[in-house]
């Protein structure tokens, strides 16, 4: 646990799984969950580097901004998804091909 590589490997796994969800999931909310996994992987990397780079708090600030952006992103994305649901009655990303009906 006092080893940088362990954290990097966990983050790499999370990133890969998140990308897998983004590629394969049909449901837009499941795709969003994949994006959240990717952002968490990036945050884990940032904080691990902060810890093993001489406890540099700047990494924490960067991760904090990532969390803020994730919150804003999820709010707007869910609003868009709700709109798509009202228009198409489904939120499968491979079915929503038009911007307007």
């Amino acid at each position, binding site marked *: *646990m006092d080893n*940088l*590589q*362990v*954290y*990097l*490997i*966990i983050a*790499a*796994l*999370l990133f*890969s*799984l998140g*990308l*897998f*969800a983004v*590629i*394969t*999931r*049909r449901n837009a*909310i*499941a795709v*969003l*969950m*994949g994006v*959240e*996994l990717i952002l*968490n992987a990036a*945050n884990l990397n940032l*904080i*691990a580097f902060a*810890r*093993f*780079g*001489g*406890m540099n*708090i700047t990494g*924490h*600030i960067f*991760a*904090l*901004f990532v*969390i803020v*952006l994730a*919150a*804003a*992103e*999820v*709010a*707007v994305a*869910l*609003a*868009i*998804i*709700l709109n798509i*649901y*009202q228009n198409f009655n489904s*939120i*499968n990303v*491979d079915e929503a091909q038009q911007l307007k009906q």
Partner: protein
Amino acid sequence: MINLVFWFFVILIVLSAFSVVLNKNLIYAAISLLLTFLGIAALYVFLWADFMAGTQVLIYIGGILILLLFGIMLTHKITSVKISHTSVQKGIGGAVVLVLFIGLLWMIKITPWKMESAMEPEQTVNTIGTLLMTDFLLPFEVASVLLLGALIGAAVLARKES
């Protein structure tokens, strides 16, 4: 003992992350995401990032996950049994991601990481607050404007057209 706790959380993260991407039921996937976020918050504690661990629990579990659950509930008719969905292109996607993961592992292994030892700080909140108000004041203010924009944008977008 502390090693045991660490590996417990690592296994929790890995298993729940797999459940997030593979579970057919979206509600189960969201609950698994909760466990993943919790495990990552625990890893932040191991990385001496106490404030970040608290923020992770507050914003990810308390905010983003609840929003996602709301999204799931609002976009499925509760009466219909089918709160599930399918995945597409699992084979090709899995292969691409596996290659990427192996590449990342290889990169992590061959890179000579330059590490610096450090003392464990008593708390990080003080430093984070000072940095936010001095070196990172402009990004901090921009983030607040962005959040306001996201708030208004989400409210306008989600409202039904009358």
